[in-house]
């Protein structure tokens, strides 16, 4: 077998989704809006959407996540949601004093055809309070997944606020759905290259912040609105995605409308793609790769040698957002691990081709787009997986299979420190190497009757 097997479920199939490997698009938008300083999100639809998404995100980040709802009633569904929309905005402004309100729609308001852009023009904020800026993204939950909602919101933020101006020294970064630790790493890295970063979306503080002596209406942190405005005059944009469509890419928009050159890159996971990132940043800055990061690389490379025997030919099941799965596959195949199944609930249509470019270790991998956990589990059994790498929703599968689960990405609902997990760069690769390697070592140690104390 030398072609990638493709097991995509046709979109038209009237089959149920059993234990979804995706979330709805409004969740992605809510996450992206958390990365603007002083912003609060309003979901235009039923109360439940906001509450469910809050609960889901709080369980992962363990931080307050306030999301307002226009709280549709039957009459809003019949006569349109304007009344609730304007009342909700009034109350959000009164309570939270936001500088920005991110508005995302739900299936309900999308289907009844509320003209949210018209609503936003029509709306008059309370006169006694400063009027916030507004940005909105269309996120009907029957279209795409949370990954699409996230990308859509990032694009909407950039389209709404970015303006051309006197060219600056700063560099835009659209890193996609990374962890707060990843975002901090990326900012540190760019500063080390003397490239002032403007990151959209940067929720590294708002969703991984400190304790408060006074309750904060909106958690501190996030990218300042003025900085977002300046994105149109940046030196360049760096955008991470292996599957993004130009029509959904914020970087492509900035290039087209503001003439900001775009460096579209894979999510920098693994040695090779991190090397590519370092090369790109070195070119942009005209500076050599900082010594500190070269040392990270040296330690990582040295530990690859230490780890390789534990990794070689281990059969891995990977799942999650498509970009994450591609990044994991790139990383693990550098370790010698064989990704035998790469699955996502998303359906960009680009997962298989991106994986194919990774080389011979992916040759036999089964690729599933539009997959759910019932299908992933069935395939994982057939493919005799040794290890599972993905979010915590694979736990029950891993438990039934008796295989270790290395938790990455979002959500992680059953462990501490999800926000502190690092996935990108040499350090993220190092963390992944140690965690995957140790999981394999532990599985071997636990399975042995001897009780080895040296492994």
């Amino acid at each position, binding site marked *: 077998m030398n072609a990638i097997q493709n097991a995509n479920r046709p979109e038209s199939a009237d089959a*149920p989704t059993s234990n979804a490997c995706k979330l709805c698009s409004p969740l992605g938008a809510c996450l992206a809006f958390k990365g603007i300083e002083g912003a609060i999100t309003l979901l235009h639809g039923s109360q439940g959407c906001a509450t469910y998404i809050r609960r889901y995100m709080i369980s992962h980040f363990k931080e307050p996540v306030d999301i307002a709802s226009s709280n549709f009633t039957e009459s809003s569904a019949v006569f349109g949601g304007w009344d609730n929309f304007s009342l909700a905005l009034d109350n959000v402004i009164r309570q939270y004093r936001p500088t920005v309100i991110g508005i995302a729609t739900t299936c309900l308001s999308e289907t009844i055809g509320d003209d949210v852009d018209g609503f936003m023009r029509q709306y008059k904020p309370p006169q006694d309070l400063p009027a916030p800026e507004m940005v909105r993204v269309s996120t009907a939950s029957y279209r795409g997944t949370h990954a699409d909602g996230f990308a859509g919101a990032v694009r909407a933020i950039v389209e709404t606020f970015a303006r051309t101006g006197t060219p600056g020294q700063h560099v835009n970064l659209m890193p996609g759905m990374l962890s707060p630790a990843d975002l901090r790493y990326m900012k540190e890295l760019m500063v080390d290259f003397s490239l002032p970063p403007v990151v959209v979306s940067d929720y590294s503080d708002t969703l991984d912040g400190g304790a408060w002596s006074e309750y904060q209406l909106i958690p501190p942190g996030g990218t300042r609105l003025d900085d977002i405005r300046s994105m149109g005059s940046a030196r360049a944009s760096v955008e991470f995605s292996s599957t993004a469509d130009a029509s959904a890419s914020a970087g492509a928009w900035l290039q087209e409308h503001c003439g900001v050159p775009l460096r579209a890159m894979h999510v920098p996971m693994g040695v090779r793609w991190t090397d590519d990132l370092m090369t790109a940043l070195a070119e942009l800055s005209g500076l050599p790769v900082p010594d500190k990061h070269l040392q990270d690389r040296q330690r990582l490379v040295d530990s690859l040698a230490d780890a390789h025997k534990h990794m070689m030919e281990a059969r891995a099941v990977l799942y999650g957002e498509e970009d994450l799965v591609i990044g994991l596959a790139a990383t693990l195949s550098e370790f010698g691990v064989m990704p035998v199944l790469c699955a996502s609930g998303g359906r960009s249509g680009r997962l298989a081709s991106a994986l194919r470019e990774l080389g011979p270790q992916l040759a036999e991998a089964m690729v599933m787009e539009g997959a759910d956990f019932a299908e992933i589990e069935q395939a994982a059994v057939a493919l005799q997986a040794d290890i599972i790498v993905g979010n915590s929703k694979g736990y029950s599968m891993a438990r039934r299979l008796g295989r270790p689960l290395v938790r990455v990405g979002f959500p992680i609902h059953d462990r501490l420190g999800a926000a502190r997990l690092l996935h990108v760069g040499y350090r993220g690769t190092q963390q992944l190497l140690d965690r995957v390697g140790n999981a394999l070592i532990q599985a071997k140690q636990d399975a042995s009757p001897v009780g080895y104390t040296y492994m």
Partner: protein
Amino acid sequence: MIDILEQRKSQVSLGQTHADGIACDKASLAGSVSQRACVFCGSRVVLYPIADALHLVHGPIGCAAYTWDIRGAVSSGPQLHRMSFSTDLQEKDVIFGGEKKLYSCLINLIDRYKPKAAFVYSTCIVGLIGDDVEAICRRVAAEKNIPVLPVHSEGFKGTKKDGYAAACDALFKLVGTAEPEPCELPRVNILGDFNLAGETWIIRDYYKEVGIDVVATITGDGRVDDIRRSHRAQLNLVQCSGSMTRLAQRMKESFGIPLLRVSYFGLEDMSKALYDVAEHFGDKQMLNRARQLVSREISAVLGQLEGYRAALEGKRAAIYVGGAFKAFSLVRSLRTLGVKTVLAGSQTGNRNDYQQLRALCDSDAVLVDDTNPLELAKFVRDLGVDLLIGGVKERPIAYKLGVAFCDHNHERKEPLAGFVGMVNFAREVYRSVASPVWRIVRSAPPAGGRP
């Protein structure tokens, strides 16, 4: 500085205010950031623990994804309820209708998992595109020969309470469709306990010990066939009255089964739940057995509780829970531990509930209906709260402010019901409040530089 929204002020009593009681039983205020979910959520949480039924969410993926394995409602047998099934409607389904997909999903899942019944939850979108869910359910029921029950839980058609009602209506269609084995003992149904961390089992054992047969547990560790036979019970014991009173009322009207409100949280309420049942049946021996059980269990836990009380005396608690009835028990349980309740509130309490709560708490206690994170944060600060009791969404409010928190909601892993549950509760309160981390959380970092 946090202000309470003008339109919310009728739902917040600052102690002596609102002599006629606070406003309640209304839709959440748009933009207020209610802690409530929606109609669908109400139905889903109530029916979720029925372990041998198929639960199919008809709608886009979110509603099913966010309720996958959402409650720690454990089952002694089948685990089908812990799966998340969705028709995962796509744009074309919204345009052309989702009936065909619903039919095909139901057939597929029933063939695969052989459930005893299927619940089909309508979500917002289904209420708009006009799928005839009833007709599809009838058709599949006839073809597969199991009950297939539509749950009218479109998210926007009311509040979480309407979702409870929709769940009760779906359940009621099962009641009386099968007959139990004959039994000599007095028979009851346990309504409104969801077997979080195995709590229903504890309660069931208590009743068994005093000589009562439990026909059906609705819905904790629930089984379709038990619910079908539940009309043969002589008494319905209703906890979590907000969610289950409607079912009990309908069973009273149709089958003449009386109902009794009970709570299994705290020593007082747990004892009362046993005595009330014995008194209802007018059975002296049963009452004696109940007394023996209560005195044995209480003497087993009293020593431990006294130790905790000594450590907790004088602490101040805020309670914000889904149903008000739970709040009553919590106020009493906290009092047993020497902890004063300075704020109490619920998502779905009614007028009566808040009057009772007002009578139960000290006169200066703050009462809130359908509150929001900022109000909670304000009161946690202003009232000098040492402990917040609530669910996942309330937790970060407490932790950010360096205040202890106890989960009295879906995610608890230790049973808090029954006598043994009271010790678990006391232990959790103690371990939360007495943890050394709060001193560090509230401490200032080193300033550095010159003094």
